[in-house]
């Protein structure tokens, strides 16, 4: 089998994400989409803080590191002076919805042509599995050892629904990136449907930006290490619990990019 080197991936880059994490998959989809759309040379990635910080070790595009939560503001600053650039960030749920919610909402409301890929694994991953604004009720984390109490912490924040209240964004979609486990008699197989849908969402989001709109895609992923589950159980949990709390669907597609064949 011949493996094609993606120009948007650093040659020889090694995946240092935990086994079972879908962060690497998302970065691969971004690299593939940049090439499919022919925009690698004018792409600028803005780094967030969390496991997503590591993205600059894999993607071979221009890069600016943002403080925790501020990626949408940095992206806006870049896009204002370099309107021809393709500007995107991978943000986690803690980065985007806890410390950075204000920056996200204002960038979205202004309809700045930038793209936020939000990886939602419902915990703070890099700091060791603390409660995030997306942690479901009852979920045990290191800062909620008896489970998230929604009376104290409120219910999890549904970011796509929240952003849908604004007229600024042009593309809002939630997909599940964790592949669904299929239990066979002697082993477990994984569905490829989630990967295909996630990839198409990445392409659509970047297309929307190229057409002048703000795009936001939430990816329901896993963090089996901090969830303290096996990889297979974490994928099951994503489909059985995460997808109930955060129903995957297309919220908005102003330019109809999802239906355009590439």
């Amino acid at each position, binding site marked *: 089998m011949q493996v094609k080197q993606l120009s948007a991936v650093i040659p020889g880059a090694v995946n240092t994400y935990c086994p079972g994490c879908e962060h690497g998959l998302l970065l691969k989809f971004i690299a593939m989409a940049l090439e499919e759309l022919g925009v*690698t*040379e*004018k*792409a*600028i990635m*803005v*780094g967030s803080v969390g496991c997503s*910080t590591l993205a*600059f070790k894999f993607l*071979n*595009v*221009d*890069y*600016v*590191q*943002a*403080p925790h939560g*501020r990626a949408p*503001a*940095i*992206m*806006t*600053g*870049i*896009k*204002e*002076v*370099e309107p021809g*650039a*393709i500007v995107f960030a991978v943000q986690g749920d803690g980065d985007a919805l806890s410390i950075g919610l*204000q*920056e996200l909402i*204002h960038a979205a409301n202004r309809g700045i042509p930038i793209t936020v890929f939000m990886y939602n694994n419902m915990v703070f991953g890099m700091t060791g599995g603390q409660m995030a604004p997306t942690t479901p009720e009852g979920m045990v984390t290191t800062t909620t050892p008896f489970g998230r109490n929604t009376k104290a912490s409120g219910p999890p924040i549904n970011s796509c629904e929240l952003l849908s209240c604004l007229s600024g964004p042009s593309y809002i979609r939630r997909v599940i990136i964790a592949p669904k486990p299929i239990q066979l008699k002697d082993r477990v197989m994984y569905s490829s449907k989630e990967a295909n849908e996630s990839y198409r969402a990445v392409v659509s989001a970047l297309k929307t930006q190229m057409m002048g709109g703000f795009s936001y895609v939430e990816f329901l992923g896993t963090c089996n290490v901090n969830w303290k589950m096996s990889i297979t159980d974490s994928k099951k949990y994503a489909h059985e619990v995460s997808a109930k709390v955060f129903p995957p669907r297309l919220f908005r597609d102003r330019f109809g990019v999802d239906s355009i064949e590439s």
Partner: protein
Amino acid sequence: MGAEAIAEAAVDAGLEAYFGYPITPSSEIMENLALLYASHRNDKFKVYFQSASEVESINLLMGAGAAGHIAMTATSGPGLSLMAEGISYAYTSEIPLVIVNVNRGGPGLGNVAPEQSDYLFVTKSLGHGGSKAIVLAPSSIQEAMNQVRMAFELSFKFRIPVIILTDAIIIHMLESVDQDHLLPVSVDSGWSARGRSGGERHLINSIYLEPDEFRKIKVKLEEKWKAIEPLSDCFMCDDAETLFVAYGISARIAMEAATELREKGIRAGVFRPITLNPFPGKMLMDAASNSSRIIAIEMNEGQMVHDVQYWVRRDVELVPFIGGIYPDTEEVIEKCK
């Protein structure tokens, strides 16, 4: 008016992007820039943007700066506090940006009267991890205009944040100025992130997880810092027995006091730091070598006086004006009797 002059100087010197959040007493700078933007005073002035907070402002500046464009904001103490996070990242990432800080009365909400109480903040503790900025302090409107241009140049030459520390007196007073000599700056943006465009990628980063690697980066940043030349001004220093040390508007008061004292037979002079960071310590040592009394005049409870003391290594007297009280020449003269 000072605010108008600073805004015009910025546009004439080649400002490309202004990002700001209104805060008294800095808002007139932003309002003047809104008019200059609308009137197309300079085609290079492409972006005028009202942010949602000073946290957003500093990050907008960082984005534009990382893309190699001349970007500026104006704010006041409470806003600068919010920007400290971003300044720390900008310092390590070597992103050029310019902040005009119109010092108001603090701490807390304080008041909107002029003070110089942000001195320690801007010169000693601007963000976590030991980040810093070049700090310029104008004592006249003309100098404020020149320093805006200088700030653009320095921020790109050293790829570092630059702060112009001024106050509500400079911003609101009237003086005649010469605008004709304000030539546009030209800056090198070859290092910036605008897409790799067929070449190697540009990495504007502040994370270095390996201590060995980070040590090298910090040594490099420190070497760069040492190459920045301090600036100062002397007013009748040569034979001064009584030497006032003051910056910004306080230096104007000190000069007035020194002139009156000379008429009374007291040989007084003024040493005025123009760059507050780096502090012109060696220049101060020279200026103070023949003085028997050294008096710091500040619109705060005594902040720069520590730097003065450090360099002259003897007792330094202090004439403080706090709470937003305008410095008073008579009070300074009284102190010298």
